[in-house]
């Protein structure tokens, strides 16, 4: 009772705002996102000016860094590819009400699996394009299986042991990074490598660079990411499996009523999510790195992916524009880090500001949906 009393005037204002957000159309939401980005950048520029740097130069660096030339576009799309893939992995689980924070771990396990599969199988297959395609397919499939299994593990722990998946997936991230770090340091280290890296995968195992000739990006990688988005969207929208998963995420009791086995659904959801994270790892290994190294500290796409997915309201299609925004910002950040003397912390802070501004209205909208703000009749 007292909770209700205290909310008072603020509550009714929040109610009205929530009401408005719940009624917002897709176009309105996009407009809100654009306005939020602009507003955050303006505040960021003020910060830049206050700390004694030239805000206009900074702004032109942002634009140049995100899509100023071929190189910048390729870099933006490279990051976008990774954010889309890992973002979809997160979105699958969140949509089903399972909080897979372990995409990073599944991504790392998938990446190493790809590299090792390709290295082991290469001697048995013909060199050249045919062998290259075969190795890419086998390596990616192996990554999906490995990522899927690594995702299934916390799924089983949650379904049959009642272990909170947020905690177990975070712990499994550490385990993945530690074990993979040990493997590339010792058993899997390439012969004669000074750094703790695996051997390089053969030259012919790579995505063809059709446009944007740039190391670390191929349009094929982006195409794979978009294909995964399409498949996941279809599975969610058109199959019983997807329906059961989403229904469990919305209302577990209704799913159970409809004959959905809650435990099985948790495990399959985590497996599906982990498999997509594994594919992300494969694309990273083949397109960007070409070998595998100690995964601690580099390429933390699996964590940023959580923000990407939330920004997309956990909708696999929405992950594409959200991934593009993140890709552009990261690309701009990289550029500014190299070509200007603005400290990297400030750049990260401004990126954070943009994310916060863009995500806040969406998070508010989701919270309103869940808590029944904006009127009880909904």
């Amino acid at each position: 009772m007292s909770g209700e009393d205290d909310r008072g005037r603020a509550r009714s204002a929040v109610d009205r705002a929530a009401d408005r957000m719940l009624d917002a159309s897709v176009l309105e939401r996009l407009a809100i996102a654009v306005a939020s980005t602009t507003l955050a950048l303006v505040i960021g520029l003020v910060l830049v000016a206050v700390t004694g740097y030239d805000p206009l130069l900074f702004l032109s660096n942002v634009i140049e860094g995100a899509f100023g030339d071929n190189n910048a576009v390729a870099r933006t799309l490279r990051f976008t590819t990774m954010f889309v893939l890992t973002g979809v992995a997160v979105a699958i689980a969140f949509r089903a009400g399972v909080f897979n924070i372990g995409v990073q771990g599944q991504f790392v396990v998938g990446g190493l699996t790809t590299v090792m599969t390709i290295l082991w199988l290469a001697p048995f297959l013909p060199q050249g394009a045919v062998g290259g395609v075969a190795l890419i397919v086998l390596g990616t499939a192996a990554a999906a299986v490995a990522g899927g299994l690594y995702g299934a593990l916390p799924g089983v722990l949650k379904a049959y042991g009642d272990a909170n998946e947020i905690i177990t997936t975070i712990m499994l991230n550490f385990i993945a990074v530690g074990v993979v770090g040990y493997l590339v340091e010792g058993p899997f280290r390439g012969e004669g490598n000074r750094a703790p890296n695996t051997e390089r995968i053969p030259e012919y195992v790579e995505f063809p660079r059709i446009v944007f000739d740039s190391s670390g990006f191929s349009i094929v990688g982006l195409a794979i990411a978009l294909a995964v988005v399409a498949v996941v969207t279809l599975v969610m929208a058109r199959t019983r499996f997807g329906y059961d998963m989403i229904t469990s995420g919305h209302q577990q009791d209704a799913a159970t009523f409809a004959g959905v086995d809650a435990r099985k659904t948790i495990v399959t959801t985590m497996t599906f999510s982990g498999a997509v994270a594994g594919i992300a790892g494969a694309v990273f290994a083949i397109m960007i790195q070409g070998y595998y190294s100690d995964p601690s500290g580099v390429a933390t796409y699996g964590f940023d992916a959580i923000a990407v997915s939330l920004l997309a309201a956990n909708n696999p299609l929405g992950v594409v524009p959200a991934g593009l925004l993140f890709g552009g910002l990261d690309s701009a950040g990289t550029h500014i880090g190299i070509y200007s003397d603005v400290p990297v912390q400030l750049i990260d802070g401004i990126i954070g500001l943009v994310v916060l501004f863009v995500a806040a209205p969406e998070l508010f909208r989701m919270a309103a949906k869940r808590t029944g703000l904006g009127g009880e009749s909904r």
Partner: protein
Amino acid sequence: MAAREDRPPAVELRGITKRFGDVVANDGVDFTLEEGTIHALLGENGSGKTTLMSVLYGLYDQDEGEIDVHGEPRYFDTPRDAMDAGIGMIHQHFQLVEPMTVLQNIVLGHEPTENGLVDEDAARADIQEISDRYDFDVAQYLDVPVRELDVGVQQRVEIVKSLYRGAEILILDEPTAVLTPQESQRLFDVMEELRASGHSLIFITHKLEEALTTADRIAVLRDGKAVGTVDPTETTEQELARLMVGREVLFETETRETTPGAPILDVQGLHVRSDRDLLQVRDVDFTVREGEILGIAGVQGNGQTELVEAITGLRDVESGSISFEGKNITDTSRRDRIESGIAYIPEDRQTEGLVQDYTLVRNALLGNQTIAPFVNRGVIDWGAVREHAESIVESYDVQPPDPASNAQSLSGGNQQKFIVGREIEHEPTVMVASHPTRGVDIGAIEFIHDRLFELRDAGLAIVFVSSKLDEIQRLSDRIAVMYEGEFVATVDPETVTEEELGLLMAGSEIDDTDDTEDAEVNR
């Protein structure tokens, strides 16, 4: 019309309008509560009764209209403001903290303090005084945790809580929904007691008889509008029903001309545990035949939920067996049971029967995920599902007749009609219906009853759970009374009286055993 007293009315609402988006929940409603009277607020579900009272209680802001309390214009932003003006509300779902004692619950937020510490003795004395004045039994439970009390006592705790906070005007929101007939009578006595001591009461209900017997005046709401205020001595149930529904309602009794056929559902020695791991169903046996309705009567929480969930495959069985068409299905999954023809109208339509965020089209697939033509080899045919949703909406008169509308935008009665339609269209052999008309308006009740009769005549075996006695007597071929997990009696609905049923539900034995059969009736 009763003569106006000299004093200003306790509450006067003028032209209250409250909108939720495009939905007008209250449309220019006038309502006057005279000092020292009981005023019933009658209406179907979704007619705007609770919304109107929530405006008065400060839970919602009205879009238009004014509120006077004791002749003073007031504006309530929060329930706290309303309480300060002497208004108390007893919600349908009690606002009590279950693990805390009665004393703690009553003083919560209004603790008398001495040197910063809660003065328990002062609180005790105050509550004792209130209890004595109105002849409540609450004082003797002061140190008992609320969850250990019966619903009736919990309700009286709620009333004492409001009185303790100085309420002179009490709003009771469907207070009898959870009570047995005996407990309801007791509540009415309490209400009269309060009126006699000068309190003014608003009594929200959709039960005609209650309004007629307890209230001094009855205001009827329909579709958010006040359609009339009547004097109970000058009206009839028929007239009230017509005001409420907006058309003539027929309370005809169905003639039972059924000849039950072969046994379909057979339950033997069933024991089931609750979520709290208590043995909630104990040694229940029964058989339901083709073309027969077995009614299960009981006060809520006596094991009906667990029994129904065990039959429908939602809950594991501790021991005993369930057979369906001769096959033992005790350990089969929920999905298998749906596919084999056991349909279920769930107790809780909000959380189980419908996904609130889904459209009716998406909800039409709920439970049908493995059934052709809706799903073939795991791929959904949304076209077929949409057609199905359209046909349910049309045949079962779901309003608004738009399958693209979200489940949560429908009123309770329409949600229920949709669920009933979907479950019947499974073409089941057994129908398990749990409180199928709870919170549903009169028009929809009539409709749902007729559908259940049709199913019975079509040869289904029906298990039907309800705590409404008139309904259970009207529908059932046999009534099993459940008390503390057991079938304490199986009676003939033709000969048993409401009083006898009420006593059985409260755990008393009936001396006259002519009406009762043994619990293990297999006929």
